[in-house]
């Protein structure tokens, strides 16, 4: 530990931090890595004596690093730097801890579901005609995995698409009204409150609501008997819209509010009408935020299971028609394959299919995100070129 009075003359030395009066009393740059390495080694030695466990090794090493690096910095650089070392290490550790479940999920799904997903025919065949016979053959005689997810994929895409078609116009127009036309009156405050309440609706309630509405509709049309006609893709889309609309409203509202008023005034001053200003100036300026809001809403509902189970039922074959017949979606498919395997005595093929479908679901959500980013990049305000 050197004090500022006694300093080596500063001579340039390739790559190293120069020793001079300004850099005196600092830890060398390798101190952090030395501390990490030392902690890992020490932790390994302790656990080899006390009994090995991988998780214990990492946790103990983290604690040892936290203590050693903080104390070292405290001694060499002083109290302020010591505190800084403690808190920045804690922040980094928190970040790593937050990554653990994410990486773990992605790794598990890819490693378990990957082989099924790339299995020939998994993406092109449905569960039509697949019974316990095939699954027992797969398990006991090594026959290739039968069945696939194409019907669930079609159902998920159709239902989510329909839900988006219903919710985006309603949500967008609601937020336009809230931002551009309502000036904080009691009615707009009520709407905002109701939208907030809607955000918290449990998804199964939304499913029951849609099922109830459509059942009433068909009963009214057929003289008191719904005949089960209300179980179809459209009813599920309706349920998902109930979940999507509030998310779209809130996201779009925030985005419209941050569009500078100067742009609206610039447009009005050119003699442009309000609705044209909104559609040609305000929305294009906010489009990237709106798109990501919509994508988040889609990503939220595409993984919903319960509301679809009670509105669209389950199916084993491809159904493109949203308005007639039961429909399968990926989350319901996963649920069914796990809870009610096709061959109850040999559930392994069903489990494999469920993991494959789970991986597909994650891929769909990621593709949606990618799409939203592309759209946002395409439409967002152009700021380059200065």
């Amino acid at each position, binding site marked *: 530990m050197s004090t500022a009075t006694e300093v080596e003359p500063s001579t340039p030395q390739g790559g190293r931090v120069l020793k001079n009066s300004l850099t005196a009393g600092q830890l060398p740059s390798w101190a952090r890595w030395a501390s990490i390495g030392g902690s890992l080694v020490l932790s390994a030695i302790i656990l080899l004596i006390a009994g090995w466990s991988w998780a214990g090794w990492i946790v103990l090493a983290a604690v040892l690093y936290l203590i050693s690096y903080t104390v070292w910095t405290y001694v060499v650089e002083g109290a302020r730097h010591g505190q800084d070392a403690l808190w920045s290490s804690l922040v980094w550790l928190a970040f790593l801890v937050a990554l653990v479940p994410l990486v773990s999920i992605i790794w598990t799904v890819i490693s378990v579901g990957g082989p099924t997903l790339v299995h020939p025919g998994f993406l092109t065949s449905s569960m039509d005609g697949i019974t316990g016979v095939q699954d027992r053959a797969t398990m006991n005689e090594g026959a290739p995995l039968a069945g696939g997810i194409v019907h669930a994929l079609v159902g998920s895409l159709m239902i989510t698409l329909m839900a988006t078609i219903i919710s985006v116009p309603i949500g967008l127009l609601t937020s336009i009204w809230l931002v551009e036309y309502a000036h904080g009156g009691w009615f707009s405050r009520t709407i905002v409150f109701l939208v907030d309440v809607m955000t918290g609706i449990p998804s199964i309630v939304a499913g029951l609501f849609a099922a109830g509405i459509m059942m009433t509709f068909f009963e009214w049309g057929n003289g008191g008997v719904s005949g089960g006609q209300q179980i179809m893709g459209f009813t599920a889309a309706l349920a998902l819209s109930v979940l999507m609309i509030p998310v779209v409203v809130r996201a779009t509202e925030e985005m419209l509010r941050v569009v500078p008023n100067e742009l609206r005034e610039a447009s009005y001053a050119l003699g*442009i009408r309000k609705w044209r200003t909104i559609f*040609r100036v305000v929305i294009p300026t906010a489009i990237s935020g709106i798109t990501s809001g919509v994508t988040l809403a889609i990503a939220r509902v595409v993984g919903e299971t319960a509301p679809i189970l009670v509105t669209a039922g389950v199916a084993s074959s491809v159904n493109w028609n949203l308005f007639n017949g039961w429909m399968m979606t990926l989350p319901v498919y996963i649920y069914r394959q796990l809870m009610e395997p096709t061959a109850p005595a040999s559930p392994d093929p069903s489990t494999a299919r469920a993991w494959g479908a789970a991986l597909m679901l994650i891929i769909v959500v990621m593709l949606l995100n990618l799409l939203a980013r592309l759209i946002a990049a395409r439409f967002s305000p152009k700021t380059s*070129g200065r």
Partner: protein
Amino acid sequence: MSKRIEAKDVNVYYGSFLAVEGVNIEIEPRTVTAFIGPSGCGKTTFLRTINRMHEVIPGAYVKGSILLDNDDIYGAGVDPVNVRGLVGMVFQRPNPFPTMSIRDNVLAGYKINGKRLGKSDADDLVEKSLTGANLWNEVKDRLDRPGSGLSGGQQQRLCIARTIAVHPEVILMDEPCSALDPISTLAIEDLIEELKEQYTVVIVTHNMQQAARVSDRTGFFNIAGTGKPGHLIEYDDTEKIFSNPSNKQTEDYVSGRFG
């Protein structure tokens, strides 16, 4: 083109707050009129009443009448959108539309309003407007680049080009140079001199030298105190306002003895 403006007993309100009281003024066509005065005295507020931009703010309204060549823009059944087509406005901070190219910014008044323009007509209009705003030579090779990529002074001239593209009769300018450097300011001031040949120009400025340089007539606004309404204290030839004003308040303000 260019019309005469006459304000009669104009009172301007924000909700129940009277911001500007009893303005009577006559502005001749093809002149530059400057409004000067301390901050908060209502000069911008009054300026925004001339193209009915004031009422865009929730709760804001105007009493009295403003005549454009004898047509009252606050008359019953007058569509504010049509008024704004006749009376263009340039704002304090340059505000080109960020999603549009330079060319589209100039054509915004037409394109957004859904008017169809042939390719050659549009090209002519873009060149004419940008030339009129002294910007053509600087941007003619990059008309398809974003308008927000220009410098501040160029952006402000782009906004002026956008305004003159819709062929207004009057151009209002709300401190158009306050966000610009001296060279860009000079460019805008030269431009105002040229605009005067075709348009009635009304400019609000905090810079008294600027008012003296560019304007033919000057109006001085003042308030008695915070929360009190602003008044038009004196309105006369610019030369007289700055050399021999008839009102004590004006004299104090232009000579720098003001609070």
